[in-house]
């Protein structure tokens, strides 16, 4: 097991093999056999070792073993993820350089290109946050300027455990307390549906021929009744009862199969009786079944009706044939069990679908109104944070932020954006993903190749020391409780040195004779020389005696694996070295030839005049094992269900505790008394605004210089993209980092896609066109099938979204083994799977950017995009409500593209004053952030009036939940769907309406900005009413308060 590397014995040198690492044994010592401890130390398995022996046809010595270990580490070889990473689309018309080089390059049109990449430094930051984060920033900057690009922006995506103590909840068998009359008449759990007799294929040709019954019920408000869960479940219950009765000989018709679509029940029946049943008898039996259904469903359906609503058979349908397109539409909108899906398919393909029976439904005038509240499901385990962990998390946050600030500020590259998110699972294993963006003239792009046998390889920059020896291996195992002793595996950064290296590199790129440049990242000298040679199909002879050294007595093993920072390898045409050395001298940098390009594919290492390693280059670079690790979805995922009314009620109870009653009273008062209800959902909004994942990150970004280089048009602040100007072209680059861990946890495939869509949303919100992405996949231990499943699914989801949006992946980084020990237990806790996307978009003119907040009053506010009104995965339920369960809805790419086109068109028209994407915390938080001068909006306008969309998609409040309160909660705080909040001047309304209809982009009117208060209403009912300034200061101080 990889964790065994953390065995204290291995590093204290108690074991003879391990002691060899410190140089006590000669580099050429051939361990035979190497023993498990040494193998673990170099990060190889026995099988990999055997493979190496086969490749070499001899046993490797210590240095060679170390080189193989580093090159075949997960960090360098992607041996676990490679086969899956191939699924990413990596080409496109703007791609100049895809994955495989120091960084990806995309065309900006004209003479310039943008170079960008994201990289993680998670494990070093967990152990030594300041230097870990600083060198992470340093590493990614080097990747950018090694391509010849001038770095112009930094972003970082950070994850920490909670900063305050939090008790774990859930995970036990006991059900959380359900309010009111819970349980008394709770319907069977949804799982029971699969036991219904619709399991097999229906034999439509058998005699007597089966009947298909369609019961259409709608309300007079054209609302499909079966979309309300209780009604649908009750229908299932009734049908099961009919089925059981038939089998017990009590009824006359057997249920062959059924499905419940939003406005209908489809039922396949066979009259269960002796042979020779005549048509009349059969019709009567079927009619009886329908009567039973009607009678039993009536009360349930009636109780979800709103005032003024009535149930009736949908007349419009009885005029028409039930065609398969309609059914297909219906199918898309609801969740099916596999059995239901199969049945619908059968019914759809069934030849006599057009001659289905229809039954009218009559409703009694009055039905008893009994209130049902569904029972909450069992609460899954939601990890907590101990006081000790919370203190550590605060220390890590402080260290990481000052490390980033130290490096980025000093080197003079603005840190313009990013995100900081908190979840207990990141305790002890923070994520530090740093992204850098640069600009390069196309003719100055430098490749990382070592071509031209006989050419010299210069090592430039800092001297080589013992720091970071085996960092790549360290990054590829789980962190242990005593990982602190691995602090020497963390490098130390010198931003001043890197600044010199940066300027010198940008100066040499214009000199004739430059062949290739690569920075020393993971596995230092080893990785750079092997990769540069492999790209050119050459080899490299390294003379370690020429390498400038910081410490004395460095062994060849240590020099090959040292990750001392601020070093680069520069390959120059033979005879043309002098001008290069002159530039390096000007910048005060040491540059010495230490390698020579070979025409054979060998890596030869000379130390103290002796050949200490001679290895074939290709197996080092490309021969790493390609693991197809087993993966499997966890049981909870297979059984996942959308949150029910009961789950939501229980979550609210956890959030508000005793406050809930008061809140309900207020709501009742508002409805009954018809007076100002005030601030019904205000307490929830306040909790969200103060939540550190939502609250302003100014305590963090005020430590970053986000203005240097005078290009920052929109700096850090809200979650939308930052915009930097490209002075050379007058364009603007919109850059955004997003890693929706919450969503990826609930559904890695949808969450992976969401990472891409969310960053695209941010880029679109500022008026830019998404160009491409880089990604950083942060996951747990891939040797555990459920973690591996998360990785595989997330990759496929991201790949799918990238294809849909035509934003190729130009490179990235994989960070696995992100797990930490649970306090007081043997178990480990994986982080939320966090696929982080760094997206770059282009604004043709930086002046055209759209801001993400405005002080203007009287602007018309719209929501662009639709939602299915679910609360699953929202910050409200997941973080505050501690409900780590639920089911996400599928992404609607058609609508996304429509909104994309609408926004670009509106951007060039100059129709939009401000635009903000609706993400964490939902619409209510977005309104508070965008409308600095307040707003007055209605989430359920009587008149409707949505453009570009019809029916339910044009509404902000859906009928997903039986409880109206929950539907309103979803309208305010739900995060489902891909939506933007848009503020436009009144005179542009007409233009927008036309554009929305033209592009079929849902545009839903909300209200107006201004008034100094955030007022959110649902018709007559006031949901939120509070001074904008007060809410905004909660938002501003939320994180600051926790850090004080």
């Amino acid at each position: 097991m990889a964790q065994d590397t953390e065995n204290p014995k291995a590093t204290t040198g108690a074991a003879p093999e391990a002691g060899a690492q410190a140089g006590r044994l000669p580099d050429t010592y051939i361990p035979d056999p190497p023993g498990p401890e040494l193998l673990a130390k170099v990060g190889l398995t026995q099988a990999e070792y055997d493979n190496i022996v086969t490749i070499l046809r001899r046993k490797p010595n210590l240095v060679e073993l170390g080189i193989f270990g580093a090159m075949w580490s997960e960090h360098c070889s992607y041996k676990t993820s490679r086969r899956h990473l191939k699924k990413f689309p990596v080409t496109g018309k703007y791609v100049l350089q895809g994955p495989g080089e120091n960084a990806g390059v995309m065309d900006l049109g004209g003479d310039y290109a943008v170079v960008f990449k994201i990289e993680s430094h998670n494990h070093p930051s967990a152990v030594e946050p300041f230097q870990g984060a600083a060198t992470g920033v340093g590493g990614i900057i080097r990747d950018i300027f090694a391509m010849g690009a001038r770095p112009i922006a930094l972003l970082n995506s950070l994850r920490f455990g909670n900063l305050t103590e939090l008790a774990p909840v859930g995970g036990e068998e006991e059900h959380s307390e359900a309010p009111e009359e819970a349980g008394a008449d709770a319907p069977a759990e949804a799982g029971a549906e699969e036991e219904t007799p619709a399991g097999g294929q229906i034999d439509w040709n058998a005699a007597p021929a089966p009947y298909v019954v369609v019961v259409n019920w709608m309300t007079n408000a054209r609302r499909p009744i079966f979309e309300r869960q209780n009604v649908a479940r009750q229908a299932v219950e009734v049908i099961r009862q009919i089925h059981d009765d038939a089998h017990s000989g009590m009824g006359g018709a057997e249920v062959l199969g059924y499905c419940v679509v939003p406005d209908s029940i489809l039922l396949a029946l066979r009259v269960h009786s002796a042979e020779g049943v005549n048509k009349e008898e059969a019709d009567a039996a079927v009619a009886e079944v329908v009567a039973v259904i009607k009678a039993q469903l009536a009360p349930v359906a009636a109780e979800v009706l709103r005032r003024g609503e009535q149930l009736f058979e949908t007349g419009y349908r009885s005029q028409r044939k039930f065609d398969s397109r309609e059914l297909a539409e219906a199918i898309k909108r609801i969740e099916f069990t596999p059995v239901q899906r199969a049945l619908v398919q059968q019914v759809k393909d069934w030849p006599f679908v057009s001659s289905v029976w229809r039954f009218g439904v009559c409703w009694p005038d009055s039905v008893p109104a009994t209130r049902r509240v569904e029972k909450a499901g069992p609460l899954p385990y939601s990890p907590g944070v101990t006081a000790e962990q919370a203190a550590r998390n605060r220390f890590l946050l402080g260290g990481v932020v000052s490390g980033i600030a130290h490096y980025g500020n000093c080197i003079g590259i603005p840190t313009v954006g990013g995100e900081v998110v908190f979840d207990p699972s990141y305790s002890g294993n923070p994520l530090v993903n740093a992204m850098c963006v640069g600009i390069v003239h196309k003719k100055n792009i430098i490749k990382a190749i070592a071509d031209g046998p006989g050419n010299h390889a210069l090592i430039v920059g800092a001297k080589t020391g013992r720091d970071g020896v085996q960092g790549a291996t360290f990054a590829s195992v789980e962190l242990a409780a005593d990982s602190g002793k691995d602090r020497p595996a963390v490098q130390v950064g010198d931003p001043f040195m890197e600044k010199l290296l940066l300027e010198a590199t940008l100066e040499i790129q214009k000199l004739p004779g430059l062949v290739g440049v690569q920075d020393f990242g993971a596995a230092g000298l080893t990785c750079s020389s092997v990769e540069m040679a492999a790209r050119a199909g050459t080899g490299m002879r390294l003379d370690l005696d020429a390498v400038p050294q910081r410490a004395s007595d460095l062994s060849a093993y240590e020099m090959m694996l040292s990750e001392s920072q601020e070093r680069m390898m520069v390959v120059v045409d033979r005879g043309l070295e002098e001008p290069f050395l002159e530039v390096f001298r000007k910048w005060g940098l040491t540059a010495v030839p230490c390698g020579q390009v070979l025409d054979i594919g060998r890596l030869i290492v000379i130390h103290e005049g002796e050949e200490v390693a001679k290895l074939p280059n290709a197996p080092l670079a490309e021969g790493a094992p390609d693991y197809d690790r087993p993966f499997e979805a966890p049981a909870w995922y297979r059984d996942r269900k959308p949150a029910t009314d009961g789950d939501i009620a229980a979550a609210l109870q956890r959030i508000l505790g005793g406050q809930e009653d008061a809140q309900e009273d207020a709501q009742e008062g508002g409805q009954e008394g018809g007076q100002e209800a005030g601030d019904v959902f205000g307490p929830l909004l306040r909790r969200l605004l103060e939540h550190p994942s939502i609250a302003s990150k100014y305590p963090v970004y005020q430590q970053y210089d986000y203005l240097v280089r005078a290009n920052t048009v929109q700096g850090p602040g809200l979650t939308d993209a930052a915009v930097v100007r490209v002075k050379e072209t007058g364009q603007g680059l919109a850059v955004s980092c997003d890693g929706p861990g919450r969503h990826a946890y609930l559904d890695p495939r949808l969450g992976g896609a969401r990472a891409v869509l969310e960053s695209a949303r941010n880029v679109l919100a500022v008026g830019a066109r998404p160009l491409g992405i880089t990604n950083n996949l942060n996951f747990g231990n891939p040797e555990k099938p459920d973690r591996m499943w998360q990785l595989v699914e997330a990759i496929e989801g991201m790949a799918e979204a990238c294809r849909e949006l035509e934003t190729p992946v130009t490179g990235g980084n994989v960070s696995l083994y992100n797990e930490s020990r649970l306090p007081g237990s043997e178990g480990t806790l994986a982080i939320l799977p966090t696929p982080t996307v760094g997206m770059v978009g282009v604004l043709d003119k930086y002046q055209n950017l759209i801001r993400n907040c405005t002080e203007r009053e009287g602007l018309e506010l719209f929501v662009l995009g639709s939602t299915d009104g679910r609360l699953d995965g929202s910050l409200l339920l997941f973080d505050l409500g501690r409900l780590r369960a639920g089911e996400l809805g599928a992404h609607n790419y058609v609508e996304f593209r429509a909104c994309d086109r609408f926004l670009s068109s509106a951007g060039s028209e100059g129709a939009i004053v401000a635009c903000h994407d609706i993400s964490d915390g939902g619409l209510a938080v977005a309104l508070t952030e965008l409308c600095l001068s307040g707003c007055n909006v209605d989430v359920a306008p009587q008149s409707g009036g949505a453009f570009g969309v019809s029916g339910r998609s044009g509404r902000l409040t859906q009928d997903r939940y039986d409880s109206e309160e929950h539907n309103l909660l979803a309208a305010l705080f739900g995060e489902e769907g891909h939506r933007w909040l848009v503020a436009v001047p009144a005179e542009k309304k007409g233009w927008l309406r036309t554009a929305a209809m033209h592009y079929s982009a849902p545009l839903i009117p909300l209200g107006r900005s201004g008034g100094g208060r955030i007022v959110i209403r649902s018709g007559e009912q006031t949901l939120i009413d509070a001074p904008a300034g007060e809410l905004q200061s909660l938002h501003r101080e939320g994180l600051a308060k926790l850090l004080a």
Partner: protein
Amino acid sequence: MKVAVIIFPGTNRDHDALYMAQNVMGWEAVPVWHESSNLGGADLVILPGGFAYGDYLRTGAVARFAPAMDAVAKHAKSGGLTLGICNGFQILVEAGLLPGALLRNNSLQFRCDWTHLKVQTENSPFTREMAIGDVLRVPLAHGDGNYFAPPELLKKLNDERRVAFRYCDEQGRITPAANPNGSVENIAGILSEGRNVLGLMPHPENAVEDLLGSADGKRIFDSLAAAYADVGW
């Protein structure tokens, strides 16, 4: 007007200063490498922000020994216009061209933020186009901007009206809350005795375009242009 922008290894706002001078003000501006002692006949010398020599010792402590600094001192002492911004201010203080000291921010953290400056004197080539009490919106970005002067020096600076700018809030109130780094009496920038040298911590060169947040900083450069046109500095 000819401008020289001094570049030390580790200087990082050279680009910003050059861009302001060339593209916004339309001046002739040249970078001057720290090893050079030739300012090329510049009328205005700018010491831009950054971390000269990494500032691993004390900010500006190493930079003052650079050959270019001898030329800067000569230029300044002969009455030449000299502007030290941020790290440039720190270097001018270390070099003894301006009095006082710049300590670590009282938050002990780097601070990057937009701030407001209240003009304290019209009597300088840097502020002659402004009125006392005018409020400028400019950004700052530094870790060591906490200006300190002992009481007697402070009195001298005040008596001679050599404090050019103080940190204030949006309404121009000079309050402790508006002080971003703990500077004594909210001092943001000071003038030399000859009033031809200005050192200030905030970055007027980053506030010369409205689209990037503010153009108030340009008023300092407009003043310089007017002073140059007037007096031929």
